[in-house]
């Protein structure tokens, strides 16, 4: 088994928690990643040719998957093919010491690999067994499969994107997904929090099986649109934009601007130099501002186009006006803010290169989180070593 070269992890929130992960999908892998970063020992069971995620886009210039490296940081890797007797022995050994098992094996493929929930519950009564699948493991669509583009649209959010400026510019184009694997990341969160919840209850009820659906997780994330439907409004990307505010093009980049409160609106008027159009009495009423949103945006767009992003955003925030620069990944990874928060940590990737990799989007004050390295795919010698430890 590859080693995790992390710091002393005994003080971390999930120290002592042993997790076995079988992941073909981003959702399952992200669940494991979240838990590994908080101190759990997470062992990926990979097929001999490696997890499919090792070959998933985007790739680095040398063909290594940037996505896999992000998702596998801090985990261990072990080759295990449950279709074989040897693989079954490794699986049994790993599950025998595991608190949590995260698995995305499709329902139809479980029986042949002895991975069905009833069997595992009988063998390991104290195991928290978390299944995370695109449409869940139960219900009429349990056997349906989906990639990110399918899942974000199956939850209703995809149909609503893009709104605002992108839709104004390209109203006839297809709806647009959020970058990357947003829906699957929510599925990963749902799997991780479900695992920790069930583990919390283990003293009362023992181990149990949890069936997590990425579609469901993304739907909960986008629940506000269902709430709007209950209010009588079927949302569409053409009309979902904020009445005023949004994405504006400045001289050297893009700005996001959003004023929800009266005091923020007053700050915006000041930022714009108190123009006559903004000082009319009617615009002191937020409802009237909403009605005249297009007119307001035209004025703001014209003003923004003549100025630089940093000037706009700096002055806006001084006045309490919510405004932000649309930052590129290069700006994020080299940002002063991120440096001071310790958002990134140096990490050895699976190809041996060093990169700055995001640790976690939260800080634990008493026990700061650490990031382990990315395990390369186990070599034949390591398989033997693993086998020798089985007994």
């Amino acid at each position, binding site marked *: 088994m590859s080693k995790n070269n992390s710091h002393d992890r005994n003080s971390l*929130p*999930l120290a002592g*928690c042993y997790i076995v992960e079988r992941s073909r999908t981003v959702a399952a892998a992200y669940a494991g990643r979240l838990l590994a970063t908080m101190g759990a020992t997470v062992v990926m069971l990979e097929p001999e040719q490696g997890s499919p995620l090792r070959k*998933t*886009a985007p*790739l680095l*210039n040398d063909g290594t*998957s940037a996505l896999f490296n*992000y998702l596998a940081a801090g985990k261990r890797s072990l080759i295990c093919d449950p279709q074989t007797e040897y693989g079954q022995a490794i699986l049994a050994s790993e599950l025998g010491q595991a608190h949590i098992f995260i698995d995305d094996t499709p329902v139809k493929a479980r029986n042949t690999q002895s991975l069905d929930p009833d069997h595992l519950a009988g063998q390991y009564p104290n195991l928290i067994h978390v299944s995370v699948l695109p449409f869940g493991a139960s219900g009429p*669509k349990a056997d349906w*499969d*989906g*990639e990110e*583009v*399918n899942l974000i*649209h199956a939850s209703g959010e*995809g149909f609503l994107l893009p709104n605002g*400026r992108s839709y104004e*510019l390209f109203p006839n184009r297809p709806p*647009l997904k*959020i970058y990357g694997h947003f829906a699957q990341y929510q599925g990963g969160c749902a799997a991780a*929090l*479900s695992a920790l*919840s*069930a583990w*919390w209850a283990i003293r009362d*009820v023992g181990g*149990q099986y949890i069936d997590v*659906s990425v*579609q*469901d997780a993304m739907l909960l*994330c*986008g*629940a*506000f649109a*269902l*709430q709007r439907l209950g209010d009588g409004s079927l949302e569409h990307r053409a009309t979902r934009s904020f*009445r005023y505010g949004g*994405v504006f093009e400045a001289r050297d980049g*893009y*700005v*996001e601007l959003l004023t*929800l409160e009266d005091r923020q609106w007053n700050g915006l008027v000041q930022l714009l130099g108190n123009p006559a159009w903004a000082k009319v009495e009617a615009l002191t009423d937020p409802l009237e501002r*909403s009605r005249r949103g297009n007119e307001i945006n035209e004025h703001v767009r014209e003003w923004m186009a003549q100025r630089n992003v940093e000037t706009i955003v700096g002055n806006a*925030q001084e006045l309490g006006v919510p405004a*932000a620069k649309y930052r590129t*990944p290069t700006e994020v990874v080299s940002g002063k*803010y*991120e440096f001071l*928060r310790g958002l990134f940590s140096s990490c050895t*990737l699976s190809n041996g290169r060093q*990169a700055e*990799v*995001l640790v*976690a*989007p*939260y*800080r634990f*004050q008493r*026990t700061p989180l650490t990031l382990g390295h990315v395990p390369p795919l186990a070599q034949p010698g390591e398989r033997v070593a693993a086998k020798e430890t089985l007994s």
Partner: protein
Amino acid sequence: MSQLLRPLAGLRIADFTIHAAGPFSTHVLSQLGAECIKIESNARPDAFRKPHAVYGRMTAATFDQVSANKLSVRLNLKKPEAVALAKRIVAVSDVAAESFRPGVMKRLGLDFQNLREAKTDLVMLSLSASGQDGPDSHFAGYAPLFGAWGGLGWMSGYTDGPPVEMRHVMDHSAGYHAVVALLAALHQRRRTGEGQYIDLAARDVASAMIGDALVMASLGEAPIRPGNEDLLMAPYGVYPTAVADRWLTLAVRNDEEWRALTGVIGTPRAAHDHRFATADARCQNRTSLDLLITRWLSDRHAEATARRLQQVGVCAHTSWNMQEVADDPHLRQRGALTQVEGPSTEKRFAVGMPACFSKTSDVGVRRGTPSLGQDEDYVFGELLGLSTEQRAELEQREVIM
């Protein structure tokens, strides 16, 4: 049903959160069985109790998903006695959660240092735009700004267009991450007996959603904005169908799935067309391939086509609007859609837990949004032991208001 049938039964949260991200986190915990006491006041009611004009909602909401399940009490935190009562609620809770601007809880005397005096092993969450300290901590922000700062907005969008504004899913994603962190801290408390303070910055969650692109940027490899494309899969995307504004999403991962797709298209020869014979070739000839798919779908209906493709193992789904989501038997059967009603709310759908538990199965939305202060008999009376007279007197002096 028994409290034991909820995984977090017995946990209690003092909930000071506002807006969307923080309330989402405590709402999820409440779906899992935690008792969540929402602390607000007539002077500063939750946003859903007011119009939201910028969004186009001109009146108060009749239902608020992220407040569902919660208990409501009123406390005017501008009064020291109200702050003292809030501390007493924290003292009988396991978790305190807040999402004010950094500095507000300290000014109120309710920051982690103060609250630990009331509850030594407290687990506390502060959820903000840009963290509790650092150069941007004072910045005001909402979901679209989190996405802009964190890079997710830049990476989302048409390749030749502007960045895209993130909406409430950005808030709720921050809330999801907060739940994971809070539960880990509770396990840590169970193991060590010590509390924890969690400082979550929503813009960092936006960055976490582009973690792969940040790995590339760290190595000097500028990631491109791919729009709807996957760089290694084709066909992959959102395609028009016979009906206007009716889209089919499609993803073909390998040659086997490509052959299955051509079987459904009815052009088996396309499976052997050298332009599309391998994944690499299909990606290189993406434009021609998308044209082929678009022509095929021009007289097809999305829903029937998605079902047919799923039968042969091809990932496909209609781009659903919320009405179609609400009508879906699969989501209903799983409990992802659940009906709620209340004294001021007609029966309507809410979203339940995205997970089915085999033993602690009583998770989900059990009641609608609370009216302001509706649970004070239980919280002030039973939990804190205040008499009716004491409460009336506090109300008269606008401590409870």
